[in-house]
């Protein structure tokens, strides 16, 4: 008895403590929860629940429901069809528009737990299956493709009888994209998608929803690849791009080529001051005194005389003295004076000082000189005046000339104008040497410019007297033709005239008739050491008859042979006849009587009558002069 009692107690204790020994605790099950109830076609429905903790013991679940307006409790007819923890209500058990009150109970040995009841009306828990038989095809609309998607409602949902009405929605995206493009299709079962990317791969999915219910899951994806139809368009774009790039390049190149002219057109350069003697550097330095002093022209405006002539180019009055001494003296003075004169009245910018001016020297020299020159002056004035006006040329010549007065003329088209010998003179220089050299320069310049033009008249050279200065004269007014060619067939170098004038002035009594004063012929005596051309009026026969326009019988040094490298005026004597005044050019040639050049250096002893040679003028003729001296090479004229 005691034994049995003890066994019982032990057994009880074992039973009691076994769980403690085991370390486990049993409890009634936790509360389950109904997660959802869904009906796919509004004819059946399923409910799922989530069980709570089982309390360590095997737990069973049961679903109980009550229909509306009835107290009868039913249990779930099918726990297995829909899977675990589910309850499936078939058609017979499903009533629409009836409120179900569903409860799940979890039971284990220790207890049971009831879930919260849930009211379900099947009408509002419909979630259909996704649409079926989905097809996507590519169709074309006027050359542009589009997708046509078509599908069928889920099989279970009875839309044919009108029991369920479904609305559809589809979504599209490119394979490489992340976001879908949604389209609501309504009740229709087909849909068109436009604006496709050429060659793109599209994914299409469809889903449906009843009037009041839940959206179905997305259907299985349909893949479709759009054919490449953009080739045509792309190629057009490529061509267009290339073409436009080409045009752009051409425009750029054109712009670059014409950049300067365009720049000039758009932003024309501001002309800087081109004032003679204006030095920009001085201006930059800021010394106004120096600047303006350089600009100042002495004797400007002309104060002494407002004569018309005064404003014109001054001509060098070369005075041909009778006596050598006189010549020497006078020439110096004359040259100096005349140069001074010229300098004072001429300026580089005048442009007047061209060879075509008839008279080269202004009368100013005459004014400053002795009375003896008055006549000369007058004549020269007249001459200058005449020379000025080309049209009045004839008149003037008439006034001068007696008949055979030498008048400045252009014989037979040969322009015998004294080039602007004196205009290029450096008017601002005060160096006497410069003056003289400038005279040389001027002469050379004159020679150079007129060389070419002497050609046409060359043929008539014979007509001209040897007393003529055969200068290559200025070409600027070739049309200055003197009508009276018979009278003045001599070269009408202005220098001639002036030279003769000068010479005349110094001659004590040689100068007579006013008419004679107009033109005079000079003969080059010599060039002295100081580079002065000493001229001697041409005499006919053996006498010194100045001013007479005679056919020169004596030596005629009117021809300028040329200018040599030393800037020497090379004159050539022209021997027309045998007779020559022995005393004339004794000093010059030393008795050879050949045609020779006057300068101290080269002598070209060619007895030919009309040699008209020209020599290239050296390039360094332009000294410190303003650029009027023509440094162009002279033409080589053919010898006659």
């Amino acid at each position, binding site marked *: 008895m005691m034994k049995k009692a003890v066994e019982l107690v032990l057994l009880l204790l074992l039973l009691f403590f076994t769980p403690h020994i085991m370390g486990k605790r049993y409890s009634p099950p936790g509360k389950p929860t109904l997660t959802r109830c869904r009906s796919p076609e*509004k*004819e059946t429905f399923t409910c799922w629940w989530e069980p709570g903790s089982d309390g360590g013991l095997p737990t069973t679940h049961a679903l109980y429901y*009550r229909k*509306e*307006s009835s107290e009868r409790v039913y249990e779930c007819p099918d726990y297995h069809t829909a899977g675990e923890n589910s309850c499936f209500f078939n*058609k017979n058990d*499903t*009533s*629409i*528009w*009836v*409120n179900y*009150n569903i409860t799940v109970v979890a039971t284990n040995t220790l207890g049971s737990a009831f879930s*919260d*009841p*849930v*009211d379900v*009306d099947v*009408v509002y828990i419909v979630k259909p299956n996704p649409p079926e038989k989905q097809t996507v095809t590519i169709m074309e609309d006027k050359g542009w493709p589009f997708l046509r998607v078509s599908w069928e409602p889920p099989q279970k949902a*009875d*839309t*044919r*009888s*009108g*029991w369920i*009405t479904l609305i559809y929605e589809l979504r599209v995206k490119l394979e490489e994209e992340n976001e879908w493009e949604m389209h609501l299709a309504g*009740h229709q079962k087909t849909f068109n998608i436009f604006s496709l990317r050429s060659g793109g791969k599209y994914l299409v999915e469809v889903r449906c929803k009843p*009037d*009041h219910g839940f959206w179905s899951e997305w259907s299985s994806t349909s893949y479709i690849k759009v054919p490449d139809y953009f080739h045509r368009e792309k190629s057009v774009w490529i061509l267009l791009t290339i073409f436009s790039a080409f045009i752009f390049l051409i425009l750029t190149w054109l712009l670059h080529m014409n950049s300067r002219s365009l720049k000039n057109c758009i932003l024309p350069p501001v002309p800087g001051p081109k004032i003679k003697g204006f030095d920009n550097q001085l201006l930059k330095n800021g010394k106004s005194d120096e600047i303006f002093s350089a600009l100042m022209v002495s004797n400007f405006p002309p104060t002494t005389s407002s004569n018309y002539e005064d404003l014109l180019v001054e001509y060098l009055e070369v005075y041909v003295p009778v006596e050598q001494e006189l010549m020497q003296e006078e020439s110096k003075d004359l040259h100096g004076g005349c140069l001074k004169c010229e300098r004072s009245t001429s300026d580089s910018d005048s442009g007047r000082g061209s060879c075509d001016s008839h008279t080269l020297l202004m009368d100013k020299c005459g004014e400053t000189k002795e009375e003896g020159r008055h006549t000369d002056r007058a004549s020269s004035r007249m001459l200058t005046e005449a020379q000025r006006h080309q049209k009045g040329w004839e008149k003037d010549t008439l006034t001068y000339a007696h008949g055979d007065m030498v008048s400045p003329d252009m014989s037979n088209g040969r322009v015998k104008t004294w080039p602007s010998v004196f205009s290029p003179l450096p008017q601002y220089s005060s160096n006497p040497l410069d003056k003289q050299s400038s005279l040389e320069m001027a002469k050379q310049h004159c020679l150079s410019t007129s060389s070419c033009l002497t050609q046409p008249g060359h043929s008539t050279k014979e007509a001209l007297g040897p007393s003529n200065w055969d200068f290559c004269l200025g070409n600027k007014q070739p049309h200055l033709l003197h009508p009276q060619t018979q009278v003045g067939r001599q070269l009408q170098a202005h220098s001639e005239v002036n030279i003769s004038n000068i010479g005349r002035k110094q001659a004590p009594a040689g100068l007579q008739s006013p008419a004679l004063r107009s033109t005079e012929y000079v003969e080059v005596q010599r060039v002295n050491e100081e580079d002065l051309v000493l001229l001697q009026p041409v005499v006919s026969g053996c006498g010194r008859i100045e001013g007479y326009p005679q056919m020169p019988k004596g030596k005629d040094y009117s021809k300028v042979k040329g200018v040599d490298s030393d800037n020497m005026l090379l004159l050539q004597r022209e021997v027309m006849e045998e007779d020559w005044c022995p005393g004339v050019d004794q000093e010059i040639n030393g008795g050879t009587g050949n045609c020779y050049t006057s300068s101290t250096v080269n002598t070209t002893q060619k007895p030919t009558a009309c040699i008209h040679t020209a020599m290239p003028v050296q390039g360094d003729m332009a000294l410190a002069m303003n650029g009027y001296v023509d440094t162009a090479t002279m033409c080589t004229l053919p010898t006659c």
Partner: protein
Amino acid sequence: MPGNIRSVSFVVLVCLLFCSRLTSVGATPICTNAHAGCHVLSLSNLFDRVIQHSARMHGISNDLHSEFEQYFLPSRNQIGRVSRNCHTSTILTPNGKENAQKMAREELTEVILKLLVAWRDPLWHFHHSMAHYDDFNNFSSNKALEMSDMVHELRKGVEKVAEKMQVLGITSNTVNSLTSPEALLPSESAEWRLMKDYDLLYCFRRDSNKVQNYLKILKCRIVPEHGC
């Protein structure tokens, strides 16, 4: 002054005449006799109109119900709601597809009409009782009014459809729904007065869904061309 009064009264009379005319017409007149110049609507068209109407009605009722639920009933699962009973539960309505399909067209039409008739008065009263709720905004009140009007209109529409069907020979003349719908009402017509507003809305939401569904079934059975 007397001249003015006379003219004003004349205008008023004319207006009254017109207004009465307008109110009596209501929807687009359907020419039963197919008079010349009268636009004859097809049955399919009629059905579509009616179905659309019922869908709208159901939508409104759904909105009102959810609003009510939000404002007045925070706790959904109350014990005791099971005892709710709609006043239209006496009307036998098919509760499944098979049942609905088994029902004859005439019966189905009758059921629809019964339902619509049964809800005319309750909804009218419901609309008036809306004014007592301060929390309800005017929009909901307008919805209630619209809802009651819709029931009225829908009933007329369904009657027209039944008439058309009879004319076309689809339905037999045995149905007397046209004569006096009021006769179909259950005897206990005052039951609905005991219902709370929320229950009323709940019941009406369900019934409007029924109406819509039955109409669709009818349509797909009779004129299945479009949308079935």
